């Protein structure tokens, strides 16, 4: 481009002038001139040089375009940047976390859909061919009713969405696809993949080091002189940039003020101990309340259902909702005694509400296990009844027709006696819980934020005090509540995906709609926090909680796979003693030497030695990483000393 040649010329001329003043030696001048002579259109090698320069420019342009394309492919980048410039990096960290979860769920959905649902739909038996794939005759009358469908009964229940639909044939279709094995491996593989991704993210975050505030030497100077981007030529972008610069200054000011606070250590320590004691009391109280209410509901379940009031029937739900509404603001008020930096206070709040929500989880699992045990009992009795009636049929037939060659029963699939299929019930419970969760979240946002904003805005014209400045004013975005909601929701998905392949798909829809809805709600109805603070660079706290929830949700599923017997007439493992028997059956089909290898590998002695080796490796790596950290600190100190030395020198020279 012409002006670049001009600039090259001008910088060349400028440098020549510079050289005359500072006196490069002749050698260097000559090599410099020779190097750039080609560009100025004189001397040999002009054509080749020009070609090289043109290719280099094209390469640079191509790289820039490709980078732009890659950045444009990242979804919701502009939305999140807008939220970040107006509300700060801490609120934006929630949306970044949401987007990362969406990516994780997309992969899980790919596994589930591609390896389990699609083969069954394309290569498995169609609806209506076998008993497990048909709505029972008794339920067919209202299988299409809206209320039944909403409860995931009727046609919903007997579809690919749930465990019970899948057939247990060892291989299906032309490609001999092993569906039961695939189902089991995908169920466990979902956990394995999630674990790998979470730990990789944590490791990558820990590289960036630091926890929040940058310890730069020129923080404020850089912010003042290099934060405005002169390339901005669009009024909307400029607005966002102004907002983000202001927010960034406010965040740094908060950090600076924390450093400058004067300390009354004893009073502060006492207040913090007091606050923790109060909160522990609250948590203990709520734990006891939950336990009491669950016990009550168990007793109530044994009584006659008509004698109970509505409250008694829904005790557990009401108490859990009340606790969820009352406790978080209570914790926040008590936490004001502690006077932590907002970033640290957020972490404490997250930890405390997490402890509260664990109680929630406990009641849910408790109720679920009760239901499962009940269904198992029912199944046993149905199994006995079916076997008895089959025996009767054989006995009657052979005695009536005087033969031992009895043809199989010819009953329409819809009329066959069915077991209760506890796995589908569990899947339905998880689905209902997720849908409930979605509804509650959206309604809370609509009422708590949107309605409030509308009322404050319009009632302000005819109210005695200033609604916008005083009570209730506009809401602030609740970071801890939303992050924990997201983490626990993911825990439910992990637990329920094994029993309901459709659950991951539902979650994807939920995450997408959440992103759009919450971005809109934040921009339209919320105001920035009073003390805007920078999110911790590492984001490892959210990841740590997510890892904990991953383990908590892994345990019940593994327990069920290992110990509970699958239903005898539904699902891909029907008829087997335990679910993992599929793996043993597959191993039998493989060549014997593989079976031998697996046999040796599962020897307890070998496994124990492997575990010991891994423990030693962990210890060794831990010690090495500590050593590296120490070495790092030493180097940093040395650099600081050199810097100070230079500083002092310059000062003495001036």
């Amino acid at each position, binding site marked *: 481009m012409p002006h670049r040649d001009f600039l090259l010329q001008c910088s060349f001329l400028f440098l020549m002038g510079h050289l005359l003043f500072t006196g490069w030696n002749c050698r260097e001048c000559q090599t410099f001139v020779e190097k750039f002579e080609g560009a100025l259109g004189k001397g040999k090698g002009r054509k080749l040089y020009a070609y090289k320069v043109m290719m280099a420019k094209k390469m640079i342009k191509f790289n820039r375009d490709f980078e732009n394309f890659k950045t444009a492919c990242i979804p919701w980048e502009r939305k999140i940047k807008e939220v970040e410039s107006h509300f700060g990096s801490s609120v934006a960290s929630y949306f970044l976390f949401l987007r990362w979860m969406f990516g994780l769920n997309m992969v899980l959905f790919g596994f589930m859909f591609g390896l389990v649902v699609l083969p069954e739909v394309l290569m498995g038996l169609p609806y209506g061919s076998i008993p497990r794939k048909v709505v029972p005759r008794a339920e067919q009358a209202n299988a299409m009713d809206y209320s039944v469908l909403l409860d995931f009964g009727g046609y919903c229940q007997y579809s690919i969405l749930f465990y019970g639909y899948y057939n247990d044939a060892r291989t299906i279709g032309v490609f001999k696809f092993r569906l039961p094995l695939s189902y089991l491996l995908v169920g466990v593989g979902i956990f394995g993949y999630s674990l790998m991704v979470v730990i990789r993210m944590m490791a990558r975050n820990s590289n960036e080091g630091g926890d929040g505030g940058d310890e730069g030497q020129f923080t404020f100077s850089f912010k003042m002189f290099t934060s405005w981007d002169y*390339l901005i030529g669009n009024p909307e972008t*400029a607005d966002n940039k*102004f907002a983000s610069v202001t927010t960034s200054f406010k965040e740094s000011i908060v950090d600076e003020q924390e450093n400058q606070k004067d300390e009354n250590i004893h009073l502060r320590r006492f207040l913090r101990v007091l606050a923790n004691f109060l909160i522990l009391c609250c948590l203990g109280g709520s734990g006891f309340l939950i336990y009491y209410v669950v016990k009550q509901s168990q007793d109530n379940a044994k009584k006659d259902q008509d004698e109970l009031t509505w409250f008694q029937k829904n005790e557990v739900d009401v108490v859990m909702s009340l606790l969820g509404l009352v406790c978080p603001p209570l914790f926040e008020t008590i936490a004001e005694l502690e006077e932590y930096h907002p970033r640290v206070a957020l972490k404490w709040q997250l930890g405390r509400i997490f402890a509260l929500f664990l109680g929630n989880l406990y009641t849910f699992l408790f109720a679920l296990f009760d239901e499962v045990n009940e269904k198992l009992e029912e199944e046993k009795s149905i199994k006995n009844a079916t076997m008895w009636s089959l025996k009767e049929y054989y006995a009657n037939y052979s005695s009536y027709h005087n033969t031992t060659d009895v043809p199989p029963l010819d009953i329409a699939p819809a009329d066959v006696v069915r077991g209760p299929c506890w796995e589908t019930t569990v899947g339905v419970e998880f689905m209902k819980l997720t849908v409930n969760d979605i509804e509650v979240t959206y309604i809370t946002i609509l009422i708590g934020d949107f309605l409030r904003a509308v009322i404050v805005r319009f009632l302000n014209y005819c109210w005695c005090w200033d609604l916008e400045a005083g009570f209730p004013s506009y809401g602030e975005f609740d970071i801890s509540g939303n992050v924990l909601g997201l983490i626990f929701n993911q825990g439910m998905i992990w637990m329920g995906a094994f029993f309901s392949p459709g659950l991951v798909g539902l979650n994807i829809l939920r995450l997408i709609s959440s992103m759009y809805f919450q971005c809109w709600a934040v921009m339209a109805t919320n105001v920035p926090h009073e003390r805007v603070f920078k999110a911790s660079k590492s984001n490892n706290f959210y990841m740590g909680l997510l890892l904990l929830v991953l383990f908590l949700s892994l345990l019940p599923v593994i327990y069920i796979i290992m110990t509970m017997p699958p239903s005898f007439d539904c699902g891909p493992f029907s008829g087997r003693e335990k679910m993992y028997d599929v793996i043993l059956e597959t191993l039998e089909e493989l060549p014997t030497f593989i079976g031998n290898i697996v046999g040796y590998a599962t020897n307890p002695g070998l496994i124990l030695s492997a575990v010991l080796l891994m423990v030693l490796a962990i210890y060794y790596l831990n010690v090495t990483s500590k050593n590296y950290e120490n070495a790092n600190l030493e180097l940093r100190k040395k650099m600081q000393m050199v810097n100070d030395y230079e500083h002092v020198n310059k000062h003495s020279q001036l």
Partner: protein
Amino acid sequence: MLGHKRFSCNHPSSTFFPLSRLFYRYRDLAPQLVPLDYTGQPDVRLPYELIGSMPELKDNPFRQRIAEVFSEDGEGNMTLDDFLDMFSVLSEMAPRDLKAYYAFKIYDFNNDDFLCKSDLEKTLNKLTRNELTEEEVRMVCDKVIDEADLDNDGRLSLEDFQHMIVRAPDFLSTFHIRI
């Protein structure tokens, strides 16, 4: 070291004019004032209002200071030379020291060759559109002087500024206009 060395290239005749694109941008601002033939070196100055309304500059909070720094008369009315100088300093290819020198002049609102407290306050208010409270503005300016002032005279000289800006990772990419 640099001195006030503004460079102006001799403009060859229009057939070999290598800066045609910039020239046409300049002319498009006021076609009736700018002649096509510059061999006679006419004395044409475009008023600041036209410069400040260019799409590359109109959203920049410092556009007035930029125009003032690069214009001969110091008021923002620019000749073609000034125009070319401005965009060459702000381009990708200009050396870091040159950019630092001109950045210092842009942020020096009272033209006294020092960035004193009032200059910093004006810069900050332009950056945040007066959204920060007075106390916050004061605190930030104190911190900036604290961080960058090496000779302890309570204001930033060119050396202080350059010493700081040379260590900024974002300076070259933000102090850049593409035209």
